[in-house]
């Protein structure tokens, strides 16, 4: 390995609350039908919300939209919606749900999902924070960045509610701040890791034996 390895990504996690429905519809609507990265959406919503969010998102994309069930495998080219009233945790290639107490009044908590994505997939993780009226997601985005992953934030000036993206930018000043159309464009341009990555096998070349960079678990 003489040249720098291409960074390949395994998973996209997106967090949003207030104004999230429109933002998510725009984002998934802008993803091409052959988009390969599994994309996990964590939206704050009422504990009794049903499948309406998934239905409204499915109207906008040809990618299959699925509401997560416990231990469901993480498949490429699929959009996943975190179910209401559970935390969504990510393991190597599958989901685990939890009814542990809300974190800062939220269940699902965006931070909880982002932490577990970052700690599982390391630098192969992409975190996206969109519109919202609180600061959930900031710490999780920080974790993703610290594990070597890619941090994207909706430009607060374009957000229905700028609080959440503004908090994310304060916490991760290195994040790329973009309009939603450009977030979709950035995601589309990424190199997907071999799908084996989502099943938990190392795929990135190890640049010099540093275990902290071995995907997907490391860093």
């Amino acid at each position: 390995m003489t040249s720098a390895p291409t960074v390949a990504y395994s998973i996209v996690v997106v967090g949003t609350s207030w104004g999230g429905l429109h933002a998510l519809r725009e984002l998934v609507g802008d993803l091409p039908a052959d988009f390969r990265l599994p994309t996990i959406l964590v939206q704050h919503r009422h504990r009794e919300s049903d499948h309406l969010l998934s239905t409204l998102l499915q109207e906008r994309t040809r990618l299959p939209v699925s509401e997560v069930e416990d231990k469901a495998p993480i498949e490429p080219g699929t959009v996943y919606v975190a179910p209401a009233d559970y935390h969504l945790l990510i393991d190597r290639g599958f989901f685990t749900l939890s009814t542990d107490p809300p974190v800062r009044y939220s269940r699902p908590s965006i931070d909880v999902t982002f932490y577990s994505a970052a700690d599982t997939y390391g630098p192969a993780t992409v975190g996206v924070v969109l519109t919202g009226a609180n600061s959930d997601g900031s710490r999780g985005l920080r974790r993703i960045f610290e594990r070597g992953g890619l941090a994207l934030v909706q430009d607060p000036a374009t957000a229905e509610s700028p609080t959440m993206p503004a908090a994310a930018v304060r916490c991760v000043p290195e994040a790329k701040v973009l309009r939603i159309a450009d977030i979709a464009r950035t995601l589309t341009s990424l190199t997907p890791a071999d799908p084996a990555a989502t099943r938990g096998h190392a795929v990135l070349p190890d640049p010099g034996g540093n275990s902290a960079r071995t995907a997907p678990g490391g860093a």
Partner: protein
Amino acid sequence: MAVPVTPGKALTGPPVTYNSDLERLEIELLLEGIFRHYGFDFRSYAYASIRRRLWKRIEAEGLRTISELQARVLHDPEMMERLLLDLSVNVTAMFRDPGFYRAFREIAIPLLRTWPFIRIWHAGCSTGEEVYSMAILLHEEGLYDRARIYATDINDVVLQQAKDGIFPLNRMQEYTENYIRAGGKQSFSEYYTAKYDGAIFSPTLTRNVVFSQHNLVTDRSFSEFNVIFCRNVLIYFDRELQDHVHALFYESLSMFGILALGSKESLRFSKYEPCYEKLHPREKMYRKVQ
């Protein structure tokens, strides 16, 4: 290659110089140690959940690594007790998922009416919120007197709380809303007495409830039941242990008995799926048919 932590940032969780394979090894060793020294078997719990709970304990104790926690836990039984609560207590609510309880009323209750006596196993009942919910539902449907509920949990401490039937008063507004949406027929406040910051539930609700310790990992079936109720417990288990528990449930259910799971739990990934028929298109209510 690790990015240094910004000093002063209140970050929680694993250190930044981080190797998830090494962490997995540490957690496996810790759980093996706990099993061999104390006999509590968490080795087949869902990794992502147990990892998160371990880190919460590590932070609460001011420790830094899983291995430090292991050293402390193995030498300090009181630390083990605190950790045991972290690992074995599941949080629930009265009439959690009201739509489920409404469906249970509409679909399962008419089936239960056809039996002279109804035996219900509430597996992993934790602090008992859903046991009281079921007792209220049976009472309102006129079935309570021919029902017996066996409420079990691995953890003695939560079982005692379940027996006491005192829940935080500040949750009653939420529970009342749930109760109404679940199709409750009376006034929810008739079921409890407020005292200080607690709501004490009527002891008549537990007249036909037997609380006892049972470990889904190691204990066997202890009777035959018409209904097994196990909601949001299996999410804390890995796939293999889920299969093991599904086998236990299958053996413990009478023919045409009803299995009720949490709203995002599924038989879909279990080999027992063909043994059941769905009683509702969305709610996780199944009937044993073979």
